[in-house]
């Protein structure tokens, strides 16, 4: 039984998994996910797909906000650029999805670079306000550049073709999404074992100190925006394939706030936290909706009332986590785990 960390070499210290248990657990999880589309209903597949997309988006935002400490309220705009770029590349230029999504993500990265420029002069809340403005400007362009984006009429996205099979159902898109979620998590995990990732963390903790230690602030701050928006671009591309029709409304400011809430509730600067947060924020409205539906038999007005409780529950959850568990669900998880690891000698 493991009762503490006894590492005797640097190799052991750098290892991602200390023991075989989490590896076995992950393999089982992957196997379960691989067969889920056979059993799950369309409703739950849709929810799972949205969770997958949210995981990638939240990872990207966490790299920028949680790990590098640059506050951004522009995540919805990044997602929008990724989604619209994917859709336009596929519908207008006829590119296959395996070229369109990476290209769109690169375009989003370039866009993130422009967003990131204010971060060189502005810190904290000024950066937050600048990204807020950038959000509104982006939304305006999407609504009004009708020749490209079809504006409020909605832009249709053709289904992705994999070896001639169109990904036109939730079950098929599920595989596409989770084929990208897994590498996204792996890449993030490894990013923070490299110089680049360590530099990000150094900037977050104290940028002057980081600069003294030889971290080029200009380069790494912009790089954080580029990497983060690459993730958002991929997530946006998947949104395009998931919903197959894009409206500017789907990328409102509330979406950006939702993503910030994900990393706050899940845990800032934590990969596990991004996943927990994405699951939590996607499931919250669904659970409320299901509660409302089951209550309508007893109390007919329940549906309308409980549906509008979403805002209240969301707000209270954010406030609660900020006050009582600032490191989020990820912290709760480690606490539970370490309790059982040392059981019955936990104290």
């Amino acid at each position, binding site marked *: 039984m493991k009762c503490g960390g006894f590492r005797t070499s640097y190799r052991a210290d750098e290892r991602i998994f200390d023991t075989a248990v989490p590896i076995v657990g992950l393999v089982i999880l992957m196997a379960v996910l691989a067969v889920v589309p056979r059993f799950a209903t369309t409703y739950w597949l849709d929810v799972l797909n949205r969770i997958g997309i949210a995981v990638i988006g939240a990872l990207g935002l966490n790299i920028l*906000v949680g790990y590098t*400490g640059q*506050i951004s309220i522009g995540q919805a705009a990044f997602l929008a650029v990724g989604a619209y770029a994917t859709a336009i590349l596929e519908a207008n230029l006829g590119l296959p999805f395996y070229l369109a999504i990476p290209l769109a993500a690169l375009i989003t990265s370039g866009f993130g670079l422009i967003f990131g420029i*204010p971060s*060189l*002069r*502005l*810190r*904290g*809340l*000024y950066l*937050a*306000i*600048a990204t*807020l*403005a*950038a959000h*509104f*400007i982006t939304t*305006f362009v999407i*609504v*009004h550049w*009708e020749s490209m984006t079809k504006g409020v009429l909605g832009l249709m996205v053709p289904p992705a073709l994999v070896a001639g099979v169109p990904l036109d159902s939730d079950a098929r898109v599920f595989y596409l999404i989770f084929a990208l979620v897994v590498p996204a998590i792996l890449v993030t995990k490894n990013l923070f074992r490299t110089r680049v990732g360590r530099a990000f963390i150094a900037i977050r903790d104290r*940028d002057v100190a980081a*600069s003294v230690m030889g971290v080029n*602030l*200009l380069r790494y*701050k912009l790089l954080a925006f580029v990497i983060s928006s690459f993730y958002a671009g991929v997530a946006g591309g998947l949104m395009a394939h998931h919903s197959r029709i894009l409206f500017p409304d789907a990328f409102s*400011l509330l979406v950006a*706030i939702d993503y*910030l*809430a994900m990393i*706050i509730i899940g845990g*800032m600067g934590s990969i596990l936290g991004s996943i927990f947060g994405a699951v939590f924020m996607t499931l919250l409205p669904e659970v409320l909706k299901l509660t409302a539906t089951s209550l309508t038999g007893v109390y007919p007005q329940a549906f*309308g*009332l409980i549906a*509008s*409780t*979403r*805002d*209240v*529950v*969301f*707000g*209270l*959850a*954010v*406030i609660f986590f*900020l*006050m009582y568990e*600032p490191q989020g669900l990820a912290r709760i998880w480690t606490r539970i785990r370490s309790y059982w690891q040392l059981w019955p000698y936990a104290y």
Partner: protein
Amino acid sequence: MNEQLVFMLQLVITGIAVGSVYSLMALGFVLIFKASAVVNFGPGELLLFGAYVSWAAILHLKLPLYVALPVTLLAAILLGLVIERGVLRPLIGYPIISVIMVTFGFASVIRGVLNMSWGSDTRPFPVLFSPEPFRLGPVPVSPVHLWSFVTIMVLLAAFSLFFRYSKTGMAMRATADNQQVAQSLGISVKWVFALSWCIASVVSTLAGIILGSVRGGVDFSLADLGLKVFPVVILGGLDSVAGAIIGGVLIGVLENLSGGYLDPLVGGGVKEVAPFVALVLILMVRPHGFFGKVEIERV
């Protein structure tokens, strides 16, 4: 006078009227920032609160205006206290991101509670002013705009007298200037924080009532107007009351002029985005605004 000029004057006058509402909102925003360095990302929800509560008091409870108004303001003071005591005081000393998110959090709670209480349909707002436009020289002006402008100017004058001459106002200015010194002089900084939230909540509520009567109805899109406070305070400087007032009027005029002239070219919506374009440009040139304290660092 030719039509072109009348058109422009009309845009400017409407801009000043709308902008004065922004000034009022920005005043509350700047007070909070000056006192406690908190940036409120939920100004729109404070507006909504004022508009909905006064609507409910007048049309739901059938209270006469002179009762409804104090009731609404009392509710606003209570809201300000609850926010400051319940949410922001426990987070003093937390990182900026936490404070920003918590303002989003309580804004969401306010929106949800309003939605649960009264639903999201557009509610007709009581007509407080006669709708008949009158002419100022050759330019038609609607009384709603004129009266809202006059009301706001009176309010702003009252507030500047309050800050200048009353003991409480001076305590607030002292706290904004230097918290430690203020505290050593016997000023309760906590009380000033609470007071600044109450005042912010009250002025936002008043702005909500005025906007409700200008638009003739309240719905949740009113909250979007609250975000216009950001261009205003960035233009004027986050910590300058005078900047907030001048900035509000300038942004109001800017959005009306750009909307009036550019809307036909791009198909509408310029009014919503022009202030934010201005915001980005100002941040690039003068991040501390035109009246704010300079304390921005470079990399």
